[in-house]
């Protein structure tokens, strides 16, 4: 017989009622619901934390790069085909400085013949890995770094033995503050420490270096005015063009012996690498999630067995098999979605703690706000498939016999 055989109206359950019924089902078994949602919360929390910590570290690095600028280029002598080091001509610095779109340029010159010690009593082999460079007095400006203490080389430094320490060099020499009467033993004489640099993010080799003026280096250590490295600030819109022209400008007779690089590229690559989630941790989160899913499925199966009376009653009240299945499916999905939201809070909290302890910006990717509850919902629906089917298959009379 067709539907017309039943003139009395259909069995209906609007979506809002479905959610209300499912919520009521969860509310009547709070503790159990909370415990089974916890499994999902831990799994999703672990994943959100992994994503959030990576994103925070990445945001931190990108912020540093932004602060330092991406328009810094470095020029270094390359190697010839025999593997010997090339030499940049002494004219390279003014040539580069006069290029179009170049804001500023500064060179450092390696001082191979001298080492720096706290006192002459320190054995000469204990250099602490500290290099000595001669540098132009605008080095901090070009690098975008600042002084932790004191000031950088100036006109006075051309005539008197004065030295500025890189951050790591100061650390090795155990000098925290630069003041007028603090001396270090450099080469064969005492130099006054007039300043300490903050860490140079774009080129960390400068941190374990001390700087003296080129004039003093030429006079005391017979340094040739051939730059070991030139730092160039170019116009942001012309960085690539300047980079292409730099070799020929720095050494017109041997442009092949000049290497040009952009330090921010390396940092951006590092930032991108930090953005990649740690696969192992994500895997652990996935395992926790799987265990949570099985836990929910398990609890739902037990729930179906315990609630046979309720299922039978609902069938008697006019619920179709589909109504019963969707009720259990919705309960399971809601349970896991709540777990997902709790997991989001857990993961965000973990990220916040991590970011706060390392003074990094707190970042949880926006997609996680949607993905965490949605993932929970989908996982719950999957976990609920079997219990829901089981509940729907239950014979109503058998269920009422409980």
């Amino acid at each position, binding site marked *: *017989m067709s*539907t017309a*055989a*039943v*003139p*009395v*109206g*259909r*069995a*209906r*359950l*609007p979506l809002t*009622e479905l959610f209300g*019924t499912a919520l*009521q089902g969860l*509310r*009547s078994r709070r503790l159990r619901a909370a415990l089974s949602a916890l499994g999902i919360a831990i799994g999703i929390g672990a994943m959100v934390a992994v994503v959030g910590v990576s994103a925070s570290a990445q945001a931190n690095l990108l912020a540093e790069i932004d602060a330092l600028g991406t328009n810094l280029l470095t020029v270094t002598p390359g190697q010839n085909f025999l593997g010997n080091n090339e030499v940049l001509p002494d004219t390279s610095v003014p040539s580069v400085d006069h290029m179009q779109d170049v804001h500023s340029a500064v060179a450092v010159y390696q001082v191979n013949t001298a080492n720096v010690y706290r006192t002459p009593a320190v054995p000469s082999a204990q250099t602490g890995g500290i290099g000595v460079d001669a540098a132009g007095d605008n080095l901090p400006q070009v690098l975008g770094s600042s002084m932790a203490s004191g000031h950088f080389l100036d006109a006075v430094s051309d005539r008197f033995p004065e030295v500025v320490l890189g951050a790591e060099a100061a650390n090795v020499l155990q000098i925290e503050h630069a003041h007028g009467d603090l001396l270090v033993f450099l080469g064969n004489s005492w130099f006054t420490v007039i300043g300490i640099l903050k860490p140079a993010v774009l080129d960390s080799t400068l941190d374990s270096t001390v700087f003296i003026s080129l004039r003093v280096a030429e006079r005391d250590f017979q340094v040739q005015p051939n730059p070991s490295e030139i730092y160039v600030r170019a116009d942001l819109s012309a960085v690539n063009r300047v980079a292409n022209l730099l070799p020929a400008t720095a050494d017109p007779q041997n442009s092949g012996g000049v290497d040009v690089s952009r330090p921010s590229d390396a940092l951006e690559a590092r930032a991108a690498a930090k953005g990649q989630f740690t696969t192992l941790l994500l895997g652990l989160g996935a395992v926790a999630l799987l265990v949570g899913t099985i836990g929910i499925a398990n609890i739902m199966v037990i729930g179906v067995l315990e609630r046979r*009376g*309720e299922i*039978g*009653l*609902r*069938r*008697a*009240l*006019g*619920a*179709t*098999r*589909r*109504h019963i299945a969707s009720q259990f499916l919705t309960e399971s999905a809601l349970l896991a979605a709540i777990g997902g939201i709790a997991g989001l809070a857990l993961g965000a909290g973990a990220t916040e703690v991590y970011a706060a302890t390392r003074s990094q910006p707190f970042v949880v990717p926006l997609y996680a706000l949607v993905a965490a509850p949605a993932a929970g919902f989908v996982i719950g629906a999957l976990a609920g498939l079997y219990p829901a089917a089981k509940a729907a298959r239950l*014979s*109503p*009379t058998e269920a*009422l016999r*409980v």
Partner: protein
Amino acid sequence: MTALRLGQVVKEFRGGVFALRGVDVAVEQGEQVAVVGPSGSGKTTMLTIMGTLERPSQGEVEVAGCSVNQASDRELAGLRAHQVGFVFQTFHLQESISALDNVANGMLYTGAPARERRRLAQAALERVGLAHRTTHRPSQLSGGERQRVAIARAIAKRPLIVLADEPTGNLDSTSGREIVDLLHGLAQDGATLVLITHEQEIADSFPRRITMRDGEVMSDERT
């Protein structure tokens, strides 16, 4: 009009157990019928077939003018939602919600809006004399009161047919008497009532009594 018609209904369970062996029963609209018989005589099976919770193995079943044999699960659910009210021996009330919500939830699958369901539930609770107990949880009610909530749930949607399976089985005789009186009173509302009982005294209060044994109707008396 015939509310229920069973024609040569046979119900065989797995393992070759016959619960019903060819039952012919017709119940008119507004009739009040008591079904008596020993355990295992097929009373409950007949009631669940009348309530479309189960289909017969053989024979014709017609409920509220609809043929059950060819109807789909959805159609039968619709029939139960609108036209059949059940009352069980063990009440089957939900413990976590109030009496009013229990009754209102009884109309969940009719598609009536929540406000309407609560209004009808309130009226039904008043009808069974529990207007002062609407906010109580089932555990806060006596056995007789719980069964009255269950009756309110069965009648709130004004079904054509009310089916009661030993509604007094879990009650003392005084409460049981009250419940039976209440169910008799429903006749004034025009509902058809089929009630299973094993107490002869209760059966005698019904105008029509069907006695069953071994899955067959032994006697069908009217007074």
